[in-house]
């Protein structure tokens, strides 16, 4: 027998004497769609929040964000397949491993971005594009082209709340995104180092004059961003799948969120991701999936026209 699908109400019809079965079913679908949208937004937020940090501090649009996500996914897969452990155990490992890697790459990015060549911001973007290509090519060469999945205890698990089915792994992703956003907020606004980061983002020259080691701070921020993004990659590998070619779509969605949120706005990224998720869900359900990207691009276009600094007007 097929398992009970989501969509038909568990609420007794008699509780709503004036509702028809069709109305109840429509309401169920609406609630499920709303939840789906919020959870899709939560998933997008996992890998876009830290992405905003790099622009705010390093003034670099990191094309390699998708590469870090996929690397995290691969770490989850290899740990689960090789060690027989739950894929979630890869999350802290991803933070440390790719945080260190990001810390080592950060100074290179800083040097390019602050060099005296013409258009250093474009040179830095080209560098990150090169990094993305290197990561993608390296993964293809060493790990092949097959699609893999990260098995976790929450994969495929769900619970129902009234008429809606709630996938646990996506709730975990949303909780992760909120925790990261909250953690970053506390770090940036309640610590001295966070103050230094904000000062650098606001005016690097004055921050340097106040004694902030900009180069080391940039390396630390890039390491933090790479670590967080790789952690998100473990979750992506569990929710979707992982192969060297999926990185580009994460990069594209990170750009979408950055445009909607305003470049450099961490809080805006969470709101923008939720917004994009809800748009995608509702358009897919009530209009057609083939129109979801059209709706997303239309939204981006309108936001750029009306509020170029993002929906919260906090972009740089």
């Amino acid at each position, binding site marked *: *027998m*097929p*398992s*009970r*699908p*989501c*969509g*038909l109400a568990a609420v007794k019809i008699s509780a709503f004497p004036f509702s028809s079965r069709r109305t109840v*079913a429509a309401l*169920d*679908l609406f609630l*499920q*769609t709303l939840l*789906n*949208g919020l*959870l*899709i937004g939560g*998933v997008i937020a996992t890998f876009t929040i830290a992405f905003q940090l790099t622009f705010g501090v390093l003034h670099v649009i990191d094309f390699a964000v998708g590469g870090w996500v996929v690397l995290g996914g691969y770490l989850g897969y290899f740990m689960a397949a090789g060690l027989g452990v739950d894929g979630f155990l890869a999350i802290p490992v991803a933070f440390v491993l790719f945080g260190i890697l990001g810390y080592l790459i950060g100074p290179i990015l800083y040097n390019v971005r602050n060099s005296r060549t013409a258009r250093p911001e474009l040179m830095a973007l080209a560098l990150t594009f090169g990094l993305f290509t290197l990561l993608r090519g390296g993964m*293809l060469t060493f790990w092949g*082209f*097959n*699609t*893999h*999945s990260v*098995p976790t205890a929450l*994969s*495929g*698990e*769900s619970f*129902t709340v009234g008429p809606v*089915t709630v*996938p*646990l*792994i*996506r709730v975990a992703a949303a909780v992760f995104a909120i925790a990261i956003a909250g953690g970053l907020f506390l770090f940036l606004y309640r610590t001295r180092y966070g103050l230094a980061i904000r000062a650098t983002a606001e005016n690097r020259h004055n921050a340097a004059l106040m004694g902030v080691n900009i180069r080391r701070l940039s390396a630390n921020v890039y390491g933090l961003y790479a670590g967080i993004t790789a952690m998100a990659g473990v979750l992506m590998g569990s*929710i*979707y*799948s992982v*192969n*060297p*070619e*999926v990185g580009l*779509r994460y990069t*594209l969605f990170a750009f979408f969120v950055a445009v909607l949120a305003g470049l450099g706005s961490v809080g805006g990224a969470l709101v923008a991701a939720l917004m994009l*998720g809800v748009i*995608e*869900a*509702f358009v*897919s*359900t009530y209009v*057609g*999936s*083939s129109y*979801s*990207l059209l709706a997303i691009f239309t939204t981006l276009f309108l936001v750029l026209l009306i509020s170029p600094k993002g929906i919260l007007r906090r972009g740089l």
Partner: protein
Amino acid sequence: MSTNDKGFSRRKFLGGSAVALTAGTLGMPFVRTARAQAATFKAGVITSLSGDNILGGNLTKRGYDLWADAINAKGGVEVGGDRFKVDMSYGDDQSNPATGADAAERLIVQNEVDVLFGPYTSGSTIAVQPICQKYQVPMISGSAESPNVWKAKPEFNFGIIPSVDTTSGMSLAVLAKLSNPAAKTIAVIGVNEPFSKETGEGFRDGVKAAGLEMVAYELVPPEGDLTPVISKIAALNPDVIAVGGHEEPLINVVKTCKSLNYRPKALIMHYGVTNPAFAQALGADADGTTGVAVWLPTVPYKDDLFGTAKEFAEMAQKKSGQEPDYTEAGCAASGLVLGDALKRLGKKPALKPEDRVALKDAIAETDIHTFYGPIKFEKEGPHYHDNTQPVPVLIQIQGGKTIAVGPKEAAAAPFIYPLPAWK
């Protein structure tokens, strides 16, 4: 001028590098000439060695290489009592049709190939066809399944696998007949990209003949999240869900269904299910998924080069570590078509341009029996130059293995229907 303690001069270094580079560049034609003097037939492989379709692209490359390695191990293709080896060159379409066309042109103009082995995707195949027409070089496509490839009536392209509109609709009829209690309703999902969309349309067009009622038809973007679509379909509760797509979205459909705790009575997909990577990625969750195959290692066909289908599968598995699917087998069979056509043509390498046109005519007259099954190309109609001989088999993943379950005369195990609840 900078120098180190040993008197190293930047000027000397740059000068030496320039001399070496010039010598290398001037020497290249001699290398090329030396290579060109060996009497070999030249084949160019255009496929997706990078990009979204890299998995399938490498399957096709494996298939083409299997034939090249096997025939070269025997000394090469037999022509007039002599044997001539096959020299393979490769072009990457990067999962992009326009890039595929450029790569094909490079293979024809620079590598001077006698024949092309076609891309993994139908989109790239359609893009390369005009290049073949322009340069009058035949192409044998071991993978393309979209009916749009053959609607264009390509003079210089020949397809090994029957197009998806002939197989997907037939498979629904088989499934409906096998289902007990009888399936009544179906939802169709097609990923909005070449081949996948046509597969969805093939399923859609076969619904009526299968005696089913279609409750939903959805086209989804390749990179979109599937949760909204699956939720919407789950609310309609069809007996069957049919999905047209490549491996990654097919895997995501199963994962999304499970995450929403939704399982239809039957889930049928087309290409991708037979790829071992599908079952490996999903583990036990792949069980129960139904697919369509035009070749399995258990089919009762054979030929002189590869032996039986089972022997081919064992050889392929030994080389790659994975059991071959019908795409890999179709690409290997492409080589058999080329070998047969060259033998009948009777021309020794190097082929002249008019010889390649004659090769095209020889390929059009192909009528052979191989480990893949019978191969004969249509000479007219909507499937012009497509091999529509193979009979599709309904397969189902059971215990991690791909098992033939229909039609009854081809079944190796009973069809599991309805599917049990998710564990």
